[in-house]
């Protein structure tokens, strides 16, 4: 079973909750934890991992290269590129590698066969065992590379190498391709929010996506006591889909600084355990 932790807004506490759940569930069941936030992968840090045993370099995209000796400067490539990746610099057409998605349209339309596509190293898949004896798989997109959704798909394939009952997937912020890739074929979504007007709005946005995939879901309100009025509004909005509420506790930051999981704070552990039994009563 695959459980995805998502939120829309960043910084609501997805990785904190994903790491806590993974540790607690691993005491009774086989767990794989998986970081799908390939732009800013932080799950491993929450699990105290700073080095990886296994690092696989991966290529998920190609980039276009224009051979200036063959190019006749017709500009057709620039005209057809939907990603604004081809620029005219001093009469020469150049591919901006940061914007090229490797779709190959320029190569297809070039009448002189002056463009080739080359594989590029886009990122890494990093694997290590946590101190709690379950595997942690992290996807990592090199800054400036494209194809975050595809890396998420590869990360999800790696899960199947391991024997597991429950895979915990930590999704990135936002609603775009890496989030869609994380939610696709998941069994359950835990949506983490906090009591601010913006996090509430982003919860409603991610819900549209979750409902599109027909996913069963539960909502966790993190730091709920920072604004109990908005927290109550969220609670009545999600009604029976509420999984739990976690109070703000500065000691969570202290845990993070010393690379210890948040459940080292006993009160936090208690709240997450309650949330977990609620979760298991539903799935």
């Amino acid at each position: 079973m695959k459980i995805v932790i998502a939120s829309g807004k960043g910084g609501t506490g997805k990785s904190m909750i994903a790491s806590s759940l993974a540790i607690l569930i691993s005491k009774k069941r086989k767990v794989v934890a998986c970081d799908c936030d390939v732009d800013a992968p932080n799950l491993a840090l929450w699990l105290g991992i700073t080095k990886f045993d296994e690092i696989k370099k991966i290529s998920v995209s190609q980039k276009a290269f224009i051979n200036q000796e063959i190019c006749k400067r017709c500009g057709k490539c620039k005209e057809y590129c939907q990603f604004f990746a081809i620029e005219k610099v001093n009469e020469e057409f150049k591919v901006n590698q940061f914007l090229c998605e490797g779709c190959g349209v320029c190569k297809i339309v070039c009448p002189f066969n002056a463009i080739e596509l080359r594989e590029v190293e886009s990122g890494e898949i990093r694997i290590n065992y946590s101190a709690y004896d379950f595997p942690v798989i992290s996807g990592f997109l090199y800054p400036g590379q494209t194809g975050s959704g595809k890396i998420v798909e590869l990360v999800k394939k790696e899960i199947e190498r391991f024997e597991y009952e429950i895979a915990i997937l930590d999704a990135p912020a936002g609603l775009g391709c890496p989030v869609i890739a994380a939610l696709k074929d998941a069994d359950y979504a835990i949506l983490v929010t906090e009591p601010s007007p913006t996090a509430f709005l982003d919860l409603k946005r991610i819900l549209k996506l979750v409902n599109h995939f027909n996913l069963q879901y539960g909502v966790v309100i993190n730091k709920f006591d920072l604004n109990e009025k908005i927290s109550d509004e969220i609670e009545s909005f999600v009604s029976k889909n509420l999984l739990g509420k976690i109070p703000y506790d500065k000691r969570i930051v202290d845990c993070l600084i010393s690379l210890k999981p948040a459940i080292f704070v006993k009160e936090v552990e208690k709240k997450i355990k309650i949330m977990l039994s609620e979760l298991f009563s539903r799935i």
Partner: protein
Amino acid sequence: MQIIASTGGKGGTGKTTFAILLAFKLVKEGKKVVLCDCDIECPNCYIILNQELKNGDSLFRFFPELDRDKCKKCGLCSKVCKENAILWVRDKFPIFFKEICSCCGACWIVCPNNAIKKKAEEAGKVFYNKINENFWLVTGVSNEKISETGPLVRQVKEKAINLAKRIDADFLIIDTAPGTHCNVIQALMNCDKVYAVTEPTPLGAHDLKLILELIQKLGLKAEIVLNKAGLGKDELIEKIAKQFETKISFRIPYSEDLMKAYSRKELHKVEIL
């Protein structure tokens, strides 16, 4: 006009808070400012500025549409699609998966039978709000289920640049999405200065390195904003600032008052920069 971005890699570090505080500061100094929300998957500036999004202009993308009368089921479209967004089985019509389509156009260009039409569909919207005489907000919003948001960010930013030129603004402030991929890259391109907003935790530090690396690769000028200073360990960020030879321009102390002002939509009352 100067174009300034507020970004950060990690989510929730205070990109939006900083962008708005900076905008108010400049407006109070008598400057004309356009703030552009380029976090089009989850735009939040307008909420904090207490604005409503009304009467926006549509942003279009071209999606493929199959003409079954013309399609000879050759499968070439599926072969050229690098996103694997077209499923084709021999002797069957191809099936298009819009959620993963990047709108690149390869399929309709290669189709030998002219059976794939490009169909303009609304993929998002852009909204304009005048906050006061010297302060405008431009907000981009992508529709859900749109996977490739980079090109839309480009469109939103172009519209904000046009507005800024028209009203002769002194500053265009760009608030980006978290992360380091295409939607953020489009927002950062050609900015005169990029503020990387971070927090003093190992996560903030880890993601700050990634965004600084990106800013460097793009050849842009970076400065650091250390938000929630004092909450964790400021040295973590100071170390990276040194390593990247980047200045920490602002330190915003961790304060529950600031968090309250944010959730009460009262950032204009805060003078902290």
